[in-house]
């Protein structure tokens, strides 16, 4: 909503209110000031009167004007075509500065002296209002030759853009904003009253009639006029340009101007072409069509009230006879109708759906006033109308409740005064409670909380005393909070291991997911209105997003990209779960002197160690995943607490090729498996232990996990720990490999003796020999 200071002046006297005070008030009553533009017109630009205008002898397009500028008559050469129609114009006299380095000087144009410049609106820093120079008229005030233009406040106006919240349809007009300001500033609101001075002799009822079919939940009022000499005055042009609504058609400008000024919805239909027999009347039929109000004029559908009208019958400045329609419909009813019937709407729907001005007479009176003051148009006497029966809305206000909601004590009398200032009708009572009648333009007010908001607005939130909250309840640590802190520490460990944290959209490209054999959201559960095809489904893995991020980084010439993300993914039934995903691509460390600027590429060995530094211990077993990132020879399931909790893989070369990746490793782990576990400490032995290395020859393809499982199952009491320390393959060994396992043998009760050690080692050997044919090397 855009307004100007002088436009507000129609309804409220702001003489004693500075711009700063005005902005502050607007903000504090909830009409947020979004943008401010204070126009000034440079000094030495004055009103000039053109005395004569002749063609330049040597230039077709130039005119030589003699212009009275008060202090004398100046000869000024002007190139604008419309100068010939002009009487009063804006003249930048010699010495006027129209810009940083644009000063008006004596000049010679094609040999003719020129002392000044006739200005267009945009040359004076005003918005563009059409081709050519700005022709002055009395709409901006009495034109006095030689008077500085900056003194015309309607030209050098202050334009304020406010952002309205969806509930404040009542402030979608100059009058509405003035009304709200009047309550807050305690300056009376000027009533606008006008009665037709010179109507057509015939009454409207003699040439038209209104027929109503069905119950109509709306108010409508019609006026009819014979149109003549419609034009858009300078003031209207400028104001409409300020609100970015200036059109070339004078009638459309008039309608727009009235609606913006009064808030009343106004449409105009061309009825000049309707041929009527003698004694036949213009017949306006309002018909309830499943709630929608159809306006039918002489059997032709003209409009759906409050929603849209038929373009072809729209009146223009050329129309000779115009039927004006003002209307009001309850915005809630209206928006439901439009949504349920999927109706197309026009630009006025923005106003009607937010609540337009219900005082239709105000609109008609303002229209009458403009047509009679500025044109030769004549209105038929009287109007025809339908008034919806509306019950007054009454809300009971309880002073205590209002004070409790606000948290400050506000005397009943203050509450009543504020509501009265806002034009609510207050019934005074002796007790805490009182009834309030809501003005019909405030459809947003329905209950005590709405009333409280009005009080808060008018007092000003900044004037409400802040009060700290008192604690009365116990601590609130819950599983979500624990989960959050687990996530937080996981994140800092990932960062410690050299990964940057990434956030990607929860969306993915269905084709890509399918291409790499990741699950897809069930067709029946997928998004209907994706934003782009890249994001046309929910992601079922974070890895594709991370791979795309790495690809972008490689395009920015990065040689090492390590990213992680903890985020939500979805399964085919759209069930949500959180995962930790990591990707590492390119060099394994920084380029520095230690590696002569040539770091090794990332390897399984390094990646797995980094992962371990982040998530702790895990077991790796041959991969069972079937997504196509998997490299069959360097991939694994990640086992945590004996459950498959994720996977790790070198990214398959095909995928690296698709995304131009370096050697890349990824892992994706269920966050659930990573939450901290409760640990009970076990007894620590006081006795010395010994290390024993067991070098075995086994089948080359036997995974270590099988051997470790077998040893684990033996459950040997003295075997405190064991792990693989060396793998060796060569030609001599052929289809076998040498595997060295380091055992740590220790007793909780006793100093070890050789017999015990031998027993432990031999039991393992025997078992591995029987199971896998393992022999000592």
């Amino acid at each position, binding site marked *: 909503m855009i307004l100007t200071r002088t436009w507000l002046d129609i309804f409220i006297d702001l003489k004693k209110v500075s711009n700063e005070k005005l902005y502050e008030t607007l*903000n*504090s009553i*909830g009409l*947020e000031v979004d943008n*401010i533009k204070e126009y000034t017109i440079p000094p030495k630009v004055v009103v000039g009167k053109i005395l004569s205008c002749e063609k330049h002898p040597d230039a077709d397009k130039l005119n030589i004007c003699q212009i009275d500028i008060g202090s004398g008559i100046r000869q000024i050469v002007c190139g604008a075509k419309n100068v010939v129609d002009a009487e009063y114009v804006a003249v930048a006299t010699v010495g006027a500065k129209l810009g940083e380095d644009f000063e008006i000087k004596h000049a010679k144009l094609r040999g003719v002296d020129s002392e000044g410049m006739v200005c267009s609106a945009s040359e004076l820093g005003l918005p563009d209002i059409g081709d050519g120079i700005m022709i002055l008229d009395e709409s901006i005030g009495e034109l006095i030759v030689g008077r500085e233009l900056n003194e015309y406040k309607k030209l050098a106006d202050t334009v304020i853009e406010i952002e309205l*919240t*969806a509930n404040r349809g009542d402030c979608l007009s100059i009058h509405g904003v003035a009304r709200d300001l009047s309550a807050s500033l305690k300056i009376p609101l000027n009533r606008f009253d006008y009665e037709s001075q010179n109507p057509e002799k015939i009454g409207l009822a003699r040439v038209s009639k209104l027929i109503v079919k069905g119950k109509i939940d709306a108010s409508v009022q019609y006026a009819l006029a014979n149109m003549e000499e419609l034009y858009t005055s300078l003031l209207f042009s400028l104001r409409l340009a300020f609100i970015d609504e200036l059109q070339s058609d004078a009638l459309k400008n008039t309608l727009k101007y009235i609606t913006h000024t009064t808030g009343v919805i106004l449409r105009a239909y061309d009825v000049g072409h309707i041929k009527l027999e003698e004694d036949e009347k213009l017949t306006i039929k309002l018909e309830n069509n499943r709630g929608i109000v159809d306006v039918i004029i002489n059997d032709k559908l003209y409009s759906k009230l409050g929603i849209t009208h038929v373009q072809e019958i729209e009146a223009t400045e050329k129309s000779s006879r115009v039927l004006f329609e003002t209307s009001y419909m309850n915005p809630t009813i209206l*928006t*439901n109708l439009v*949504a*349920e019937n999927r109706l197309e709407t026009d630009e006025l729907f923005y106003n009607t759906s937010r609540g337009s001005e219900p005082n239709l007479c105000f609109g008609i009176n303002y229209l009458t006033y403009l047509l009679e003051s500025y044109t030769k148009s004549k209105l038929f006497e009287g109007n025809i109308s339908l008034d919806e029966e509306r019950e007054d809305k009454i809300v009971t206000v309880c002073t205590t409740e209002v004070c*409790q*909601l606000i*948290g400050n004590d506000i005397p009943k009398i203050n509450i009543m005064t504020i509501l009265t200032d806002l034009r609510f009708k207050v019934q005074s009572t002796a007790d805490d409670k009182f009834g309030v009648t809501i003005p019909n333009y405030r459809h947003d007010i329905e209950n005590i*909380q709405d009333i409280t*908001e009005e009080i*808060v607005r008018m007092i000003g*939130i*900044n004037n409400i005393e*802040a*009060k700290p909250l008192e604690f*009365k309840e116990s*601590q*609130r640590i*819950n599983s*979500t*909070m624990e989960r*959050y802190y687990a996530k*937080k520490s996981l*994140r800092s460990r990932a*960062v410690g291991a*050299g990964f*940057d*944290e*990434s*956030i990607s*959209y*929860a*969306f993915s490209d269905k084709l890509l997911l399918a291409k790499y054999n990741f699950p897809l959201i069930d*067709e*029946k*559960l*997928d*998004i209907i*209105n*994706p*934003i782009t095809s890249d994001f046309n489904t929910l992601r079922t893995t974070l890895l594709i997003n991370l791979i795309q*991020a*790495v690809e*972008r*980084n490689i395009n*920015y010439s*990065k040689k090492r990209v*390590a*990213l*992680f993300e903890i985020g939500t993914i979805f399964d085919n039934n*759209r069930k949500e779960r959180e995962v930790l995903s990591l990707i590492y691509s390119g060099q394994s460390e*920084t380029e520095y*002197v*230690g590696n002569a600027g040539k770091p090794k590429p990332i390897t399984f060995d390094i990646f797995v160690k980094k992962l371990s530094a982040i998530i702790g211990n895990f077991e790796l077993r041959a991969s069972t995943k079937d997504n196509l990132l998997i490299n069959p020879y360097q991939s694994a399931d990640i086992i945590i607490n004996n459950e498959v909790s994720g996977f790790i893989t070198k990214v398959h070369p095909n995928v690296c090729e698709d995304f131009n990746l370096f050697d890349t490793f990824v892992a994706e782990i269920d966050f659930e498996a990573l939450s901290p576990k409760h640990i009970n400490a076990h007894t620590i032995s006081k006795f010395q232990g010994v290390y024993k290395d067991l070098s075995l020859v086994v089948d080359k393809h036997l995974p270590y996990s099988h051997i470790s499982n077998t040893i684990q199952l033996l459950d040997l009491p003295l075997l405190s720990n064991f792990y693989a320390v060396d793998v060796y393959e060569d030609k001599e060994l052929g289809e076998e490999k040498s595997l060295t396992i380091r055992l740590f043998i220790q007793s909780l009760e006793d100093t070890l003796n050789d017999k015990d050690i031998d027993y432990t080692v031999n039991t393992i050997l025997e078992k591995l020999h029987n199971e896998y044919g393992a022999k000592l090397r």
Partner: protein
Amino acid sequence: MKNLEEQIRDASSLDALSRVRIELFGKKGALSKEFAKLKDVPGPEKKAFAEGLNRQKAHLQDVYDTCYETLKKEEIERLLKAQAIDVSLYSNLNEKGALHPVMTTMDKIIDYFVALNFSIEDGPKVEDDFHNFEALNLPKNHPARDMQDTFFFRDKAVLRTHTSPVQIRTMLAQKPPIRMIAPGAVFRKDYDITHTPMFHQVEGLVVGETGEVSFANLKSIMSDFLHYMFGEVEVRFRPSFFPFTEPSAEVDISCIFCKAEGCRVCSHTGWLEVLGCGIVDQNVFDAVNYKDVSGYAFGLGVERFAMLLHKIPDLRMLFEGDTRLLEQFR
């Protein structure tokens, strides 16, 4: 004897010194020879002779110890020198990653409310119409629904457009008093310089018995929170409108870029809008069947806070894993 002292002093390395030591102090060394003479010294002079010898021995031992210390020092110095490294070559190795500025901002916000005994609550990203709209006083066709471009699924579920449904879920699951925040990702169908289809919000809700929780409390906590986040700023409240709160307010801080003089970031107003809040609408309490309570709620966009706090120029960059941005936070 003088000569012996010079021999010690002349040794130029620990090895040479060690040889001199054997020659002097060894079993067959010079000093042993001198002591051997003791037996030939006549009785009355024996004592003085022995004393003289012991004095000399002690003196030589002193000289030797001093030389040893000096040479040892030199030796270590030499060894150390040989291992010298230009340590400055090892500056800024970049081996630590970076936390995402949006996440650290979220952490900072959460820390504040946890310190004030707020619980952290969570809910699903895929929501139903009831939790995302209906229960929040946003009935079908409500114009405020237009403000939130929603992603819909075939089965009429939606991606949550705000974290507010978590309020509803928490109120349905728990009894008052409630004091919670709901941090998390939300989704709107909007994609341009200032909008991304996913972003993060932190939503807060406080519910107590009627009269216990007021607008004045809300004001106090929001001001305090904004000072915690942004330091010495002015805080301004403006009436506003949200379907699920009434009265509602938007909260501005004085522009941190221009000290409220007016700049591009604050559209020359000197103020930056940072959060929305208000007294919970009775219709919301009705939807969850809470009686005789009052409460307030607030919500803020984490990306906006992160961008303001860290002067990050481009919103979309935050979602691209762009290490050119991230590495600045290492």
